[in-house]
C-alpha cells in the first residue's frame, strides 16, 4: 500500500480540478457563463480553463442567464455536456423558466429520447458579507422541481467527487457550491483525487448516539462544531451530510434517526417552505415510533437575506443548534 501525499487544498481548487479533469477526459464538456473565461470566474473556479482548452471550451457569454441556460440546452441536445456557471444564486433566477420548463423536463417530455446532460454550477448561500442578491439559498426552488438533481458538497473531496459525478450524469444537476466554503481547506491529494462520488448518497460525517443533526452544504461544518460543543453538555451527536437533496437518501437518514431517536435539521435557507420541512416530514413518516421528540429545525429566519452587518444574526450557528438539541425532550431520559 502506497501512502498518498495529502496536501491542504481549498474547495475552490478542488472544483477547478474537477472541471479540468472532466474537460480533459471528455471533449464534449464545455464550460460557459459570465466571466468564466479570461477572468476565470469571479470566484476563480474556472481559472486557467480557457487558456488550457480554448475559448470554445470555456466561453465568456453575453450577460443573460436565460440565454446561457437556454443555449446550453441546445448544446446538450446536440450531444455536448455543458457546465454552466450562474454567477451568484440570485442571478440564476432569470433562467428559472428555462430551468423548470425545459431543463427539468426534456427527458420526460421526449420519453427519454432527449436527455440533457447539463450541470448548472451556482455559488450559493451567505456568510461572505455579500450585499443583497449575493447570498440567497435557493435550493428549495430546485428541490421542488422534479427532473433536477440537487447536489451540494460540504468538503473539499466531495467538491471534486460530486462535481465529476454531476458532469458525468446524463441528467441535469443543479450543483450548489457553498460560497463560504470556497476557501475552506482540507487534506486532499490533488494528484490523485478521490474517485467520483455517486450522487444520492448521504454520509455520516460524525457518528453519535444521542441525536442526529441532518444537514448539508454550508451548514455541515457548523453542525460538526456544534457536535463538538455538545459533548460538554453530555450529548453525543451524529451528523449526517445529505450531499444531495435530490435524490434524497432516505435509507441513511432513516437508519440514523431510528438509532438516535432524535433529530434536528439544520440549514441556512429560510425555514418556512425550506428543505427542512420536507426532511422533517419524511423522517417523521418513517421513524414516528422511534422518535422521542418531534424533529426540530434550525434554519435561516423567514426574511429576505440580511445585509452583511446583520447576517450573523440570521445564520444558524452553534448556539441555536444546541438550543434545539436541548429542546428534544430529554426529560424522558433522566
Amino acid at each position, binding site marked *: 500500500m502506497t501512502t498518498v501525499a495529502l496536501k491542504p487544498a481549498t474547495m475552490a481548487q478542488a472544483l477547478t480540478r474537477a472541471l479540468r479533469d472532466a474537460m480533459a477526459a471528455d471533449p464534449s464538456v464545455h464550460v460557459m457563463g459570465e466571466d468564466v473565461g479570461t477572468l476565470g470566474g469571479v470566484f476563480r473556479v474556472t481559472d486557467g480553463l480557457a487558456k488550457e482548452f480554448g475559448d470554445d471550451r470555456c466561453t465568456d457569454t453575453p450577460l443573460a442567464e436565460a440565454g446561457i441556460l437556454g443555449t446550453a440546452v441546445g448544446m446538450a441536445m446536440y*450531444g455536448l455536456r455543458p457546465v454552466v456557471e450562474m454567477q451568484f444564486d440570485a442571478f440564476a433566477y432569470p433562467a428559472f423558466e428555462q430551468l423548470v420548463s425545459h431543463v427539468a423536463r426534456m427527458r420526460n*417530455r421526449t420519453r427519454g429520447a432527449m436527455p440533457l446532460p447539463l450541470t448548472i454550477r451556482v455559488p450559493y448561500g451567505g456568510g461572505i458579507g455579500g450585499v443583497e442578491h449575493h447570498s440567497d439559498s435557493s435550493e428549495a426552488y430546485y428541490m421542488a422541481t422534479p427532473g433536477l438533481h440537487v447536489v451540494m458538497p460540504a468538503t473539499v473531496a466531495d467538491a471534486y467527487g460530486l462535481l465529476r459525478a454531476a458532469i458525468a450524469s446524463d441528467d441535469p444537476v443543479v450543483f450548489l457550491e457553498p460560497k463560504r466554503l470556497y476557501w475552506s481547506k482540507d487534506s486532499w491529494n490533488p494528484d490523485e483525487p478521490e474517485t467520483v462520488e455517486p450522487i444520492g448518497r448521504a454520509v455520516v460525517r460524525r457518528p453519535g448516539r444521542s441525536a442526529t443533526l441532518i444537514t448539508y452544504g454550508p451548514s455541515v461544518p457548523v453542525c460538526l462544531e456544534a457536535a463538538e460543543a455538545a459533548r460538554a453538555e453530555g450529548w453525543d451527536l451524529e451528523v449526517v451530510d445529505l450531499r444531495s437533496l435530490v435524490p434524497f437518501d432516505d435509507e441513511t437518514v432513516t437508519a440514523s434517526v431510528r438509532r438516535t431517536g432524535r433529530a434536528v435539521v439544520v440549514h441556512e435557507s429560510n425555514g418556512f417552505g425550506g428543505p427542512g420541512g420536507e426532511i422533517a416530514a419524511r423522517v417523521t413518516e418513517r421513524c414516528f415510533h422511534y422518535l422521542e421528540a418531534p424533529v426540530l429545525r434550525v434554519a435561516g429566519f423567514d426574511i429576505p437575506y440580511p445585509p452583511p452587518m446583520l447576517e450573523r444574526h440570521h445564520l444558524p450557528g452553534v448556539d441555536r443548534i444546541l438550543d434545539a438539541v436541548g429542546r428534544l425532550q430529554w426529560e424522558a431520559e433522566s
Partner: protein
Amino acid sequence: MTVMEQRGAYRPTPPPAWQPRTDPAPLLPDERPYRVLGTEAAAKADPELLRRLYAQLVRGRRYNAQATTLTKQGRLAVYPSSTGQEACQVAAALVLQERDWLFPSYRDTLAAVARGVDPVEALTLLRGDWHTGYDPYTHRVAPLCTPLATQLPHAVGLAHAARLRGDDVVALAMVGDGGTSEGDFHEAMNFAAVWQAPVVFFVQNNGFAISVPLAKQTAAPSLAHKAVGYGMPGRLVDGNDAAAVHEVLAEAVRHARAGGGPTLVEAVTYRIEAHTNADDATRYRGDAEVEAWRDHDPILLLERELTERGLLDEDGIRAAREDAETLAGDLRARMNQDPVLDPMDLFAHVYDRPTTQLLEQENQLRAELDAEADGPEGAGR
C-alpha cells in the same frame, strides 16, 4: 495640479474605444414585404420547387382542416391551427437539408409534418397522451415548444454546438409575432449574433398574439427591424407567398451555412382561424379583416401563378388534393383509435434511473391500478 496639467495637452479625439463597426445599412429590411408570385421574380423561380410547394400547401390546408375536425370530435385536446399560414409552414420545412434542425412552436405541427414527422406523432402533444410524440433525432425536429420564445436559445445552442463540432448544420427556429416580445427572443438573437451561429430566426407575424394585435405588441417599423440591434440582417417577406418565403429562407440558410451567421426573417401572414379551438376570435376582430386575407390566400396565390404559367392543370390540382385526402384519411383513421397508454410511463423518464422515492410511488400506483382492475369496488371513485 489640475487634471489637465497632469495629462498634458488636450486632444479633441473621439473616445478611444470607439470604432464604427458593422455598417447598419445592409442589415435593414426592405421597405415592403418581399414578393415573388405575380412579380417578375416569379419567372426565375424553379418550376419544380413551385409545384412541390403547391402540393405541400394543399396537403397542409387539408391537414389543418382535419386536425380542427378532430378537436370537434374530442380526439384532440386542443389545436392551434396554421390555416392561412401554410406557406410559412411548408417553406420552413422544405428549405432545410436533412441534417439541419427545425425548432417549431405549438402552432407549427404542419412544419414538422412537412419535414417528415408522422402526423399522429406530431399531434400527440395536442391529443394529450404524451408531451412529445416523436423522437426529435429521427427527423431533427425539436419538441413542439409551448413556453413562448424559449425554443430560440435552444436553436442557437444547437447550431453553435454543431459548428463547434465542425458539422454542416443549420437550425431554423420558428416564433410568433407575440413571442418576439419575450426576453428569450432577445437573448437568443444576441447570442446567435455574437457567436455567429448558423441559425435562422423565422417570425410568423400573423397579426395576433391570441387577441392582442401587433400594434399593442410593438412600435417597431417592422419586426424585421429588430435584427439591426443585434448586428444581423433582417428580412421582410410576404408570408403568404410561398415562393418568396422559400427564397428568403433559403438565402438565410445559405448565408448561415456559409458561416455568415444568423438572419431574422419576418413573414407577414394571417391566422385565419381562432387562436385555438378554445378561442373566440369574434371577440377581437371583424370578419372583413379575415375576408381580406382570404383574398390573399397562400394556395390561391400559388395556384394562380402555376396555372397562368401552364405549370399546373386540372390533373395536377386533382392529384394534389387526392394526396391531401390520403393524408387526412390516414390521420382520421389513426386518430380515431384510442391511444394505448401505460400510466407507468409517468415514472419512467423523469430521471435516467428513478429515485427511490419514484420507485415507491410507482409501486403505489401499480397497486392502485391492480386493485382497480381486481375489484369493482374501488372503480367507482
